[in-house]
């Protein structure tokens, strides 16, 4: 067509374009019927009279980058043609969503921000197909999810298979190990206020002997058989102290100890799934499996250690989080912990703790 011809062509015969601007500032024009397929753009054009020229380009939401916009427009361009059969549309859709997972997620997000429901449904279905039937590790791998739940949290509450006691034992031993590593880490950061662990433990013992919590003393006595275990115990109590310290802000050492014992007792008596209870159970297991403990210490390979480190960090976080929140969480999951079946060769106080959790 010559220029003269172009000049006399009526405006209606020219294709109308809508101007769109993505978050990075890039402005482009798109055929009107294609762009209007997106409800959000449609709304902008009709309600706010935007998009008719470069200066009044419609600003697209941030989640729509140029690459995604291009994909979405391809989708719109195909589907806005009315004459297509259902079979054709389905076939197009199947081919359209063949892309890597990252782009699929971005596309879902972009389509959602433009309120393009058919595309959101399509991508959601594709994502569901990806997730279905895969193991958690595979899913984490695909979507780059952080593996930041602890072993206890991962114990699937709805697992239907019979509990393997060996797995439970292992988990408890991991929990113990984590605490141990976590304590070492905490000790680096703690203020000078505290003394050497070993000395403190003696003080603790004395105060316990003189104090009003005979039961805790009972535990301690039974635990103090092995040297390393004793150290861990002291660390545990220290950790409990620290946790309580953060909340109760009691500077007095003696009060702290009593506090920790009291709170510990309450926690043990009240709920099933706390870490403190794990301490108790761990110790009971330790009493039975003394020789194994040493072996486990040596066998931790680097990969596992790394995993435990992560879990330790998480554990530290959890310990320092708000107490009421934690109680809430614990209470909501408490009922799932299967009662531990073990025979007690400890003293009566231990049995009482165990029974109180086996509601």
């Amino acid at each position: 067509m010559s220029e003269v011809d172009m000049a006399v062509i009526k405006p209606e015969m020219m294709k109308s374009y809508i101007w769109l601007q993505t978050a990075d500032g890039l402005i482009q024009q798109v055929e009107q019927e294609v762009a209007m397929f997106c409800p959000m753009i449609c709304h902008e054009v009709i309600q706010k009279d935007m998009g008719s020229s470069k200066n009044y380009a419609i600003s697209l939401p941030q989640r729509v980058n140029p690459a995604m916009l291009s994909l979405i427009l391809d989708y719109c361009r195909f589907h806005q043609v009315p004459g297509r059969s259902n079979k054709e549309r389905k076939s197009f859709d199947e081919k359209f969503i063949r892309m890597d997972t990252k782009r699929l997620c971005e596309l879902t997000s972009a389509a959602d921000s433009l309120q393009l429901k058919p595309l959101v449904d399509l991508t959601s279905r594709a994502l569901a197909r990806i997730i279905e039937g895969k193991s958690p590790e595979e899913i984490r791998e695909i979507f780059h999810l952080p593996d930041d739940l602890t072993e206890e949290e991962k114990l699937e509450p709805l697992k239907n298979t019979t509990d393997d006691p060996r797995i439970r034992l292992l988990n408890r031993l991991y929990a113990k190990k984590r605490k141990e590593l976590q304590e070492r880490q905490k000790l680096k950061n703690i203020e000078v206020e505290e003394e050497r662990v070993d000395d403190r433990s003696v003080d603790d013992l004395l105060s316990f002997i003189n104090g009003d919590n005979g039961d805790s003393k009972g535990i301690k006595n039974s635990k103090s058989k092995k040297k390393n275990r004793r150290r861990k115990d002291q660390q545990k109590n220290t950790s409990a102290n620290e946790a309580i310290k953060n909340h109760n802000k009691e500077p007095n050492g003696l009060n702290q100890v009593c506090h920790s014992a009291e709170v510990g007792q309450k926690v043990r008596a009240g709920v099933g799934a706390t870490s403190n209870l794990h301490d108790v159970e761990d110790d009971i297991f330790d009493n039975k499996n003394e020789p194994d403990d040493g072996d486990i210490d040596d066998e931790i390979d680097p990969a596992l250690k790394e995993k435990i480190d992560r879990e330790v960090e998480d554990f530290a976080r959890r310990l320092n989080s708000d107490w009421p929140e934690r109680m809430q969480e614990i209470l909501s999951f408490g009922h799932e912990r299967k009662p531990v079946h073990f025979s007690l060769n400890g003293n009566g106080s231990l049995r009482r703790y165990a029974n109180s959790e086996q509601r």
Partner: protein
Amino acid sequence: MDDVMSRDLISGLPRSIIESILTRLPIRDAVRTSILSSKWRYKWATLTQLVFDEKCVILSNDRCKVEDGLVNFITRTLFLHQGPIHKFQLTTTHLQCCPDIDQWLLFLSRNDIKELVLELGEGEWFRVPSCLFNCKKLTRLDLFRCEFDPPPTFKGFLCLKSLNLHQVLVSPEAIESLISGCPLLESLALSYFDSLALTIRAPNLKFLCLEGEFKDICLENTPLLVAMSVAMYMTDDIAEHFEQSSTCNFNRFLGGVPRLERLIGHIYFTKFLSIGDDLGRLPITYAHLKVVELNQVSFEDMKEILVVLRLITNSPNLRELQISGSSNTLAAIDAPDLDFWEDECPSNCTFKQLRVVRMTDMSGVPHEMEFIKFLLANSPALETMSISPCVYVMDGRLNMLIELLRFRRASAQAEILFIQD
């Protein structure tokens, strides 16, 4: 940690999308996502649709174990769930009557349940607890193999749009008052009832599906009905009842459905319609009726043929017609009233929109052939007429073909397909 979080592809998507994805997963997979990462711990717990089926159970030979497993799974899921539950569907053969189901229903009735589907196994039927009748927001109710006994104070589900009762033990009065008590009801399906006499009053009803032994059905107030599918089984009692009945079933059933678009009848439906005298027949035009499918039409019964004719001649916009015959060849061979087609048959009717006709299970008896001849002669827009002979007829096929060839066709493009199996 930050580095990992920025790489995370999916956890940042809006909640509606996550819910959309999780809803499309089987419930076990959806719940498993709680161990993916800390963010995913409770994403599944706010799902508003919970669908439990056979995939939830870990199969084993021990029935009790499977049953316990399923019950535990559902109980725990409900307990861990947070927020409203809009849809609850349980489809399983492993559970029948179980006290846990009562508790689940109670829980659901407190959580704004809108859609409830309970399909339980064979065996002792589950008796629906009274808490179900307190679910005020119910829009859909599907019950299979249950006992349904509304309390006297029950007035109906005011929001119910879809009701499906399949093999449900319930008194006829209860069903009638239930249907009347649901003013918004649009879709009704009743199957496998024994000797039910029913009057349906549902001003908003659009879809009706009936299957079972019905002594009597009357569509008293269903002006908006668009599609219906009826399968009527016959027992001796019902047959006797019909003998003595004098009301015109055609009018009672199809008298008040001007908006009907699809009609599908199975088994004894045409016979049911043929009962009663039609002397005082009202001329009703089914202006929207496009598709008619009548199965097991007995062409040896003149009354049934009249029903079919009455239906199609009053449907000016009929596009598709499918008829399957069930004629006892021996009795139908010496067909009386064959001169009906010459004398009394309405000759000035034209099926202007009729495009597709399918005649199946044809035995080649005289009335069938006359009917086909009638259709071919009066359908100027016909595109396809397909005829499938009945499997038991082997010898008569050639005769059928010979007769077919002779028939005049009003439509020049009409193809006649003779489908041999």
